[in-house]
């Protein structure tokens, strides 16, 4: 994950609010192509941006992969189809 040694990144972000908003939009897929270049630059040069990005990414990943899924009750689909038949 550490493509660049952290010593090469600046310790303070010059505009944290703007940067973080941008990073979050990129993670949510809201910025497509233009996002990739900006992202590369931020992650290479700014430590707070680097850390924020990886934390936000980890949170999205665990939400997507680890949240409990509930199995649909088997009779539900049949029950719906039956009710649709009745109103047809």
């Amino acid at each position: 994950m550490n493509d660049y040694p952290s010593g090469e990144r600046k310790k303070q972000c010059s505009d944290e609010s703007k940067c973080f908003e941008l990073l979050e939009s990129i993670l949510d897929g809201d910025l497509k192509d233009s996002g990739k270049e900006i992202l590369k630059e931020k992650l290479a040069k700014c430590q707070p941006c680097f850390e924020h990005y990886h934390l936000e990414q980890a949170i999205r990943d665990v939400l997507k992969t680890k949240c409990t899924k509930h199995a649909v009750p088997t009779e539900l689909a049949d029950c719906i189809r039956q009710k649709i038949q009745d109103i047809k």
Partner: protein
Amino acid sequence: MSEVQRRKYSQEEKNAIFDGEFMPHIDSMYNFGYRLTFDEDDAKDLVQDTYLKAYRFINSFEQGTNAKAWLFRILKNSFINEYRKKSKQPTKVDYQEVETYYNSDDVHYQSTSDLRAESVKDMLGDEISNALNSLAVDFRTVIILCDLEGFTYEEMAKILDIPIGTVRSRLHRARNLLKEKLQGYAHNMGYNTDEEEE
């Protein structure tokens, strides 16, 4: 998503849309209903209600558009208009209260926690689920739609009937609240959140 009545579908077309485009989403719909109500029977009622409405108003569904988003919008409206009304259980945070309290779309993005990506990755599914479930329903909803169901900001705006700017800011606040919860778990579990000792 427009309510404009299009040409009427034939019976075969209706069946094809219902089976081919609506029913495949029953799994996501049920999970959405369950995460809103925390109750199996209420979730079943919401899903059934949604599918009956979807069938009744099938002519206002434009084929080739996003059926999942269309169905989610119906379910969310049923939840607000019917379930919340009849439910005796008061919601932890009142919808209006959240809306007025967090009225502004203008959010200052900043680093709010010393939570580390590594601790988050080590967390258990139950911890993640509990943290999500503890959020007020409006915050929970945006995270479900975005992170669990993969909707775009634009689709979420349509499902929730709010501007995209509000989607973005509500999502940001929701994740910050979630981070606070997770940070609490991280401390309890003795995960390394920061070098400082309390």
